[in-house]
């Protein structure tokens, strides 16, 4: 689809978890072609220290309401400033960017950790629209870092793994009992060690698997070549050839 630069109005802002918030944006443009796993580049308003846009993955899309939601983690000055934007204000957004998830498979596991849970909500909805009810496995250090489960519940079977056992099963996502079940497709998004562990296991079990990589970006359009990942075919832009990659092309990345 054609990439666009649009002024979106902030129609809602809600706290999510400590250091996480959700912005809901409305731009008057049809959003039906936005794919799960794609991202947008948001200009940080009124912030002299921040020049470059901030890449943020699509959390949710309501095609009928024409709204786009972004789940943002405060990690630096740019995202901190974004956390302060008021409802009713305007954000300039370039959208929608990159290659999203294929939404393939019949027995599907979606694994998320940290901000990696962000794209899984809309991804699960897209599976649901296909009549597939995925297993959603969310991981975190402790219960306080697991997102509001009620949001995800309607769209799949929910499983939780925490390092301290304060919610769901104790341990890593790859140690959760649901992880060993038979699947024909796995999607993972989250911290790199988590995605590598999921990808290696999928490779070993012969399950199709996609991971969503995250790197620092400048342009978001595949021009500056700053955000590259080392794939089996050489350096590829996470912003354009990703952020979602089939692990078939990431053997070198998995082995690192």
């Amino acid at each position, binding site marked *: 689809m*054609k*990439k*666009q*630069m649009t002024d979106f109005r902030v129609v809602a802002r809600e706290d999510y978890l400590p250091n996480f918030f959700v912005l809901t944006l409305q731009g008057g443009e049809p959003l039906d072609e936005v794919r799960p796993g794609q991202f947008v580049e948001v*200009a940080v308003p009124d912030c*002299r*220290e*921040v*020049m*470059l*846009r901030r890449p943020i993955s699509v959390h949710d899309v309501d095609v009928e309401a024409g709204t786009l939601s972004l789940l943002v983690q405060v990690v630096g000055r740019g995202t901190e400033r974004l956390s302060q934007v008021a409802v009713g204000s305007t954000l300039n957004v*370039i959208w929608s960017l990159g290659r999203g998830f294929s939404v393939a498979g019949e027995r599907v596991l979606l694994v998320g950790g940290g901000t990696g849970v962000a794209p899984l909500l809309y991804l699960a909805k897209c599976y649901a629209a296909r009549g597939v009810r995925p297993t959603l496995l969310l991981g975190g250090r402790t219960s306080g870092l697991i997102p509001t489960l009620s949001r995800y519940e309607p769209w799949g079977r929910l499983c939780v793994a925490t390092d301290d056992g304060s919610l769901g099963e104790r341990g890593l996502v790859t140690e959760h009992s649901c992880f060993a079940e038979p699947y024909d497709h796995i999607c993972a998004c989250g911290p790199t060690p988590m995605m590598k562990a999921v990808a290696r296991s999928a490779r070993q079990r012969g399950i199709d698997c996609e991971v969503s990589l995250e*790197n*620092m*970006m*400048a*342009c*978001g*359009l*595949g*021009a*500056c*070549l*700053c*955000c*590259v*990942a*080392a794939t089996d075919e*050489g*350096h590829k832009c996470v912003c*354009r050839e990703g952020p979602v990659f089939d692990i078939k092309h990431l053997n070198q990345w998995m082995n690192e």
Partner: protein
Amino acid sequence: MEHISNEPSLQVRVASMTLRNPVMTASGTFGYGEEYADFVDLGHLGGIVVKGTTGSRREGNAYPRMAETPSGMLNAVGLQNVGVEAFCSEVYDRIKHFDTNVVVNVSGSTLEEYCQVAARIDALSAIPAIELNISCPNVKQGGMTFGTRPEMAAEVVAAVRSVFSRTLIVKLTPNVTNVVEIAQAVEEAGADSVSLINTLLGMAIDVERRRPMLSTITGGLSGPCVKPVAVRMVWQVAHAVKIPVIGLGGISTAADALEFLMAGARAVQVGTANFVDPTVSVRIVDGLADYCRRHHIADINDIVGIV
């Protein structure tokens, strides 16, 4: 009664290349132009300078390659590109019909590599000019080493001059004591134009992790923070050479572009600002026209070098 046109002329010439306006996009910031096709009508630009092209395919440097700094950014991409053969056989066919001057940035590690690439591009009739990159700070060999010594710069320019028949622009590095003597050396050696500045060598440190932000430790600084340095160098060079100067370094508004024109640049390139606003290059074109109308300037050439 004398006829007064409302539309100022923005057309400029850089050696034998005619530009419909002075605004080009800088190499490494605009891909092959295709990346911006959803945002920019390339037919509104004076020209685009496509990615640095080398003799063979290059993977470039390891990630991380970028760090944002106050009013700018460091990069250490390291000339990742498909190589001149793939450029000629695949990329060229996609971009040769663009309704603008498509300039190829030519890079290399050795004098022979520069000549090899330039000779291949010479055969591509839709490319009106090359920009010889003797100023990349992010490669171990060649690159900037050619651009920091007048005699080496002259040698590579003379060699490329003998194999390239159209407009030869030489891109200069600011990482020298005296940019004027480099500019004069390449003019003497047969350059048709000089473009400056490439990035300033810089460094940033992640204090929490106690390590450099870039995999290469140092990188090239660009963005609004470098503009005053660039304007100064363009002004110095424009007063010291007869060939047209192309100014770049931190341009993100029409006023920035006008500073370079008044300092003596015949044309300008917009670089890092493309990352922030993909439409910025055409906005600058519109802004130049608007400035000319407001100040009753019939021909933008009239303000080149007026400072």
